[in-house]
């Protein structure tokens, strides 16, 4: 028991130290750490580091692509679950819609009979999923908490059942030869293939960086504040003038767009879409990535997604028991660190660092300190 408490305190102190160190650095110093780190991340599949590698079980670049894809999904889901606090158990529905739109518009098996280029298809896939986000969100977002979770669970199932039963969606037979991004090597062979994970990995990492910037921009604005306010206390938010329904739909739409994008990327890489990969368990896995890493915290969510995707690839012997392991890990985490691995709060003001230094004379309180005994009597947390 004592060892328990000690290790628990150890983890917390470590996370806090890292957080404080990072937030104590200047912008310039942060870039100095970030740039080499990003370069290293880009180089991972090429370096194929000995201890980290998933081979011979899984092709390492493919494993890294899958981890990156999971990370992208987690970022999208984090907008809904982490920021706005809307429990979405049907996120796989958006992922499926993105994949199916890509398949319908590029595969020769499609009844539509069109073969649009991939670059055209991706924005279309995102637009369709965002629209489906509005369709799902507008009537259901008046619900709260558990009720909303159940409706979204139903949404995910509806999408899967449509894929099973609607004839033009081809059920189990699926769509072959879904298109990928254009581009060929000097010798004429295509860059993006089903077997080569590296170019796909680079593509997804680049997309992740872009999405992180955009989502970060939303976070540090009125939109992000509205989301967190809704998460913290929806009634109070509304009474403070936040149009809650509108911002909840916006969160759904943003999350859906990222989900659709990752679906289209997934379909392109595999080259094949059928009804098999879009069940509830996949939704739960997505959610586990967000909760494990720390809902609301973008870096935490990236970490969580990496763990969820990488562990079964790396340790093939335990891959069969992955749900058991993740389940146990989540229980342990919820007991000892309910805010997730990295629980730092998000910044909610554009140029907030400058504002705090200039006006308050010290930086804002960012790092989570865990439950404090002296925290206010009135605030419900």
């Amino acid at each position, binding site marked *: 028991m004592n060892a328990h408490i000690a290790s628990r305190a150890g983890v917390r102190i470590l996370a806090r130290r890292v957080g404080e160190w990072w937030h*104590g650095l200047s912008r310039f110093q942060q870039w100095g750490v970030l740039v080499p780190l990003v370069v290293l991340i880009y180089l991972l599949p090429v370096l194929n580091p000995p201890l980290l590698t998933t081979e011979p079980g899984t092709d390492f670049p493919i494993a890294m692509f899958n981890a990156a894809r999971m990370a992208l999904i987690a970022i999208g889901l984090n907008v809904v679950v982490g920021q706005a606090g809307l429990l979405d158990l049907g996120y796989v529905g958006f992922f499926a819609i993105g994949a199916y739109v890509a398949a319908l518009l590029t595969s020769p098996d499609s009844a539509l009979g069109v073969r649009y280029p991939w670059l055209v298809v991706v924005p279309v896939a995102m637009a369709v999923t965002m629209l489906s986000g509005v369709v799902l969100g507008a009537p259901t977002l008046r619900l709260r908490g558990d009720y909303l979770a159940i409706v979204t669970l139903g949404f995910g199932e509806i999408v899967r059942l449509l894929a099973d039963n609607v004839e033009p969606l081809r059920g189990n037979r699926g769509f072959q030869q879904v298109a990928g991004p254009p581009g060929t090597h000097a010798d004429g062979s295509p860059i993006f293939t089903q077997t080569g994970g590296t170019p796909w990995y680079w593509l997804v990492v680049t997309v992740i960086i872009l999405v992180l910037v*955009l989502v970060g*921009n*939303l976070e540090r*604005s*009125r*939109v*992000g*504040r*509205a989301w*967190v*306010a809704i998460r*913290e*206390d929806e*009634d*109070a*938010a*509304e*009474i*403070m*003038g*936040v*149009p*809650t329904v509108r911002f909840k739909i*916006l969160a759904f739409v*943003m999350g859906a767009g990222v989900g659709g994008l990752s679906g289209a990327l997934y379909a392109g890489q595999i080259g094949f879409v059928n009804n098999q990969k879009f069940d509830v368990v996949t939704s739960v896995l997505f959610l586990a990535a967000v909760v494990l890493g720390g809902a609301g915290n973008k870096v935490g969510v990236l970490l969580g997604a990496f763990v969820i995707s990488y562990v079964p690839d790396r340790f093939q012997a335990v891959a069969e028991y992955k749900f058991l392991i993740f389940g146990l890990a989540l229980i342990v985490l919820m007991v000892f660190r309910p805010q997730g691995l990295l629980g730092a*709060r998000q910044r*909610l*003001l*554009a*140029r*907030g660092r400058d*504002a*705090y*230094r*200039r*006006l*308050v*004379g*010290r*930086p*804002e*309180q960012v790092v989570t*300190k865990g439950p*404090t005994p*002296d*925290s*206010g*009597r*009135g*605030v*419900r*947390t």
Partner: protein
Amino acid sequence: MTGDRGRTESTEDGVSPGGGIVAELGRMTGEERRAHEAEVAEAVAPDREIAVDVGDTLLEMRDVTVRFGGLVALDAVSFGIRRGEILGLIGPNGAGKTTCFNAMTGVYRPSQGQVLLEGRPLGRRARHQITRAGIARTFQNIRLFGEMTALENVVVGTDARHRTGAISALLRLPRLHREEREAVEKAMALLEFVGIADRAADRARNLPYGCQRRLEIARALATEPKLLCLDEPAAGFNPAEKEELMALIRRIRDDGYTVLLIEHDMRLVMGVTDRVVVLEFGRKIAEGRPAEVGEDPAVVAAYLGVPDDGVA
């Protein structure tokens, strides 16, 4: 907590010698401080027309009835709130004070009757639209956004008047930067106004109770209300804190706001309000100046119990 502050201050010295408004305040002389307070008041209420149309009716409750099933929580209550006054709403527990509040701010819809703001019925407006129309409130049981800093809590209030949408935010258009800058300045001025500027960077849930109450008032003021409704703001305060709160409420009124105050503490109500409305069992039983109401036999019988207790 203290260790944290020590650390940040030591790094701060190297960055900017100013150390922000808080440090500056400490260095000010009395006169400089008064000048600065005037500035703050100006920033808090930039376009309020002080003493211009004091006296006309800002908000009117017209025969408002609220029923929950068979229970009549509010029975045809009518009264007006005049611009620039502090109106107290009092009554024994369960008299319908908070229901009255909720009917005003759109939490409940009146079963009958109307609430009119500046002569226009609030009708079926959504709650956030009522806030934008100019009614802001605090909560009896504090409801802050606990994970946000004090400053961010207030900025959420200012967002009620902002127009930045998802597109401007995504692409960081100039409007976003202008609104953010103004919002932060204003929020900081409000925190100073209620006296918790030094806690601006702390998370709301880590603030002491008194600061949380003050932060709620700052957040409500940030929505630029015409009418500020305070629901038992002194609950849980000791006498010294109550004195400070009374001073704050007066300053808010002097700044040009109209204030509706629900309060149990008779001393506070009698000391700070211009007029008082008394509810009992969902009905209005008296209305008038505090001293008059305190001597009204119906009020004494219903609420004050022992006559000596009245204006004690």
